[in-house]
């Protein structure tokens, strides 16, 4: 009984606090034409009850999480594991599941309309971005908040190379990756000695600087008006809008598969181990003979390669780019995809990228509130499931005598 009273009091206090806090915007509405004030008291009631219920629910969930008995934890975790992921890990299920997925993906453009294909393509570009950023954050443990600058680098290398030299998509794609990598190294050098929050702040600044440069170098980059009429990739001949969109969709699928393949190779490689050691403890990593300078630069360059490619894809998809597409908001969205999905986890990041792009697309009504939504989602996640929706499953490599 006492506990319930206490709960009521806490919730009531939260509700009251919320009512006071939101009073000016929720209740008062000034009509500037009639010079009258409209008092919407009813709204206050909604805020009050809403907060009261939410606050109660919140503490109930927290309570359940903390008191979740230790024994049950392991098996609930197992059963709660994302089912697709689980079936992929199961050897017998692997081939049927993968082939169904493959067939679905291949026939998707035939089943749905062209608009859906276009949305899917955007999501796939985001998957590549997410996986790229995952190298920096998940493997290297370096918090990078200016990732959109690398993305812009790729998009602008295609845009500019087309504008000045008429370079086609297929040439621009590898060149975009290279220019991304070069830019990654350029940003990597000055931040070599930084880590943690300092690194985050400096990379954030670099991201903004890159955008401002693009905006103000108007002679060369066409400034804020951007570059238009960048061609979509053609297949032998120029394709129709519809055909080009579907073709780009398949290109994105292929690149996503290629990215996943490379990510898995990185995880198993010597570089991957060096990055892992660096992210766990950089002083110890140095004493093991790991070249931190090289490891950090590699991280940035490897991460930037994918952003560069994604940038070329974006330019080819939208045929129009301007600096406004590469703001801090974009960096944050990619970061949200990684953190929400599961830092370091390939399936997690893929899921995260889809969520972040598809939810605002399919729930148009919500898209104005998407920052708010993702903010709430991150807070909730960091309390209830800090490793992300599909947490990373560390593969333990086997050494020494057990080596096969």
């Amino acid at each position, binding site marked *: 009984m006492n506990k319930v009273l206490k709960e009521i009091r806490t919730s009531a206090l939260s509700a009251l606090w919320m009512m006071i806090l939101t009073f000016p915007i929720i209740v008062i509405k000034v009509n500037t034409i009639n010079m009258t004030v409209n008092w919407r008291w009813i709204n206050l009631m909604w805020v009050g009850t809403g907060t009261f219920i939410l606050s109660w629910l919140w503490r109930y969930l927290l309570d359940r999480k903390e008191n979740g008995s230790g024994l049950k934890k392991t098996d609930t975790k197992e059963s709660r594991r994302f089912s697709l992921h689980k079936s992929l890990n199961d050897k017998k299920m692997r081939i049927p599941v993968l082939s169904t997925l493959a067939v679905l993906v291949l026939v998707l453009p035939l089943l749905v309309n062209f608009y859906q294909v276009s949305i899917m393509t955007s999501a796939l570009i985001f998957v590549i971005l997410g996986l790229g950023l995952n190298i920096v954050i998940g493997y290297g443990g370096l918090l990078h908040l200016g990732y959109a600058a690398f993305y812009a680098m790729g998009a602008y290398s295609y845009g500019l190379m087309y504008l000045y030299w008429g370079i086609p998509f297929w040439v621009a794609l590898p060149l975009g990756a290279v220019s991304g990598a070069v830019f990654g190294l350029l940003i990597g050098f000055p931040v070599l000695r930084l880590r943690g929050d300092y690194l985050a702040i400096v990379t954030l600044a670099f991201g903004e600087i890159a955008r401002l440069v693009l905006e103000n170098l108007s002679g060369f980059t066409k400034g804020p008006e951007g570059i238009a009429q960048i061609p979509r990739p053609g297949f032998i001949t120029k394709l129709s809008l519809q055909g080009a969109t579907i073709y780009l969709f398949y290109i994105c699928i292929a690149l996503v598969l290629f990215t996943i393949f490379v990510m898995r190779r990185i995880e198993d490689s010597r570089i991957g*181990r*060096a990055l*892992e*050691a660096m992210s*766990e*403890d950089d*002083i*110890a*990593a*140095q*004493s*093991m*003979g*790991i*070249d*931190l*300078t090289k490891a950090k630069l590699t991280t940035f360059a490897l991460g930037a390669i994918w952003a560069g490619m994604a940038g070329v894809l974006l330019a080819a998809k939208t045929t129009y780019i301007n600096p406004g597409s590469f703001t801090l908001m974009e960096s944050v969205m990619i970061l949200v995809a990684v953190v929400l999905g599961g830092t370091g986890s390939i399936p997690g990041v893929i899921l995260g990228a889809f969520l972040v792009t598809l939810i605002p697309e399919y729930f148009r009504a919500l898209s104005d509130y998407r920052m708010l939504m993702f903010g709430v989602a991150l807070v909730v996640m960091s309390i209830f499931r800090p490793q992300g929706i599909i947490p990373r499953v*560390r593969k*333990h*490599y*086997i*050494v*020494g*005598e*057990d*080596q096969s």
Partner: protein
Amino acid sequence: MLKVDNIHTYYGNIQALKGISLEVNKGEIICLIGANGAGKSTTLMSISGIEPPRSGTVILEGIDITGMPPHKIVTMGMSQVPEGRRIFPQLTVLENLDMGAYLRTDKEEMKRDLEYVFELFPILSQRRHQIGGTLSGGEQQMLAISRALMAKPRILLLDEPSLGLAPLIVQQIFGIIVRINKEQGTTIFLVEQNANMALKIADRGYVLQNGIIVKTDTSSALMADEEVKNAYLGV
């Protein structure tokens, strides 16, 4: 083997080492003792290149290694056990050991060294698949030493291996350090606050105070020294 000549190391504007000189001969166990904040860890990190000195030289087997990056110094046969162990918490015991051998390619030799460290610390062999972060403090220290040994160093630097451990474990670990020195011929440079234990196993010792070496002698002479007794041995 190792010759440190008049090194000065700074953290920003704060001078931590004010002209340290010391020498370690091949096959010796040398200890560096001093109070908290004397600059013991800084000395070690200056030698291993993590906090390079602003002036002075560090010579390892006749080669000037001052200012060399730490990963290069590791390839020259120097390996360190940093203060506070610093094992990789998410990696298993085996993976931690494997990281120690990061620069090596001689698979057969590595296997033998792995067996050797498991012989030194049988508990690690039992715990080989356990995640490093879940080991006890003593086990973590054993792992840190083993990890450094996996680099097959000719000289091993240890920073306070006794930190936070029960006397019995400290005794065991110091016993192993002597064993490594005898069996492998590894030269040992030991930094310790636990002067009593350190001087017992060391051949010679240096006493560090506020970034300056104030005394050096054989261990037995230092243990008999009145000042050292009063300040560091607590008798």
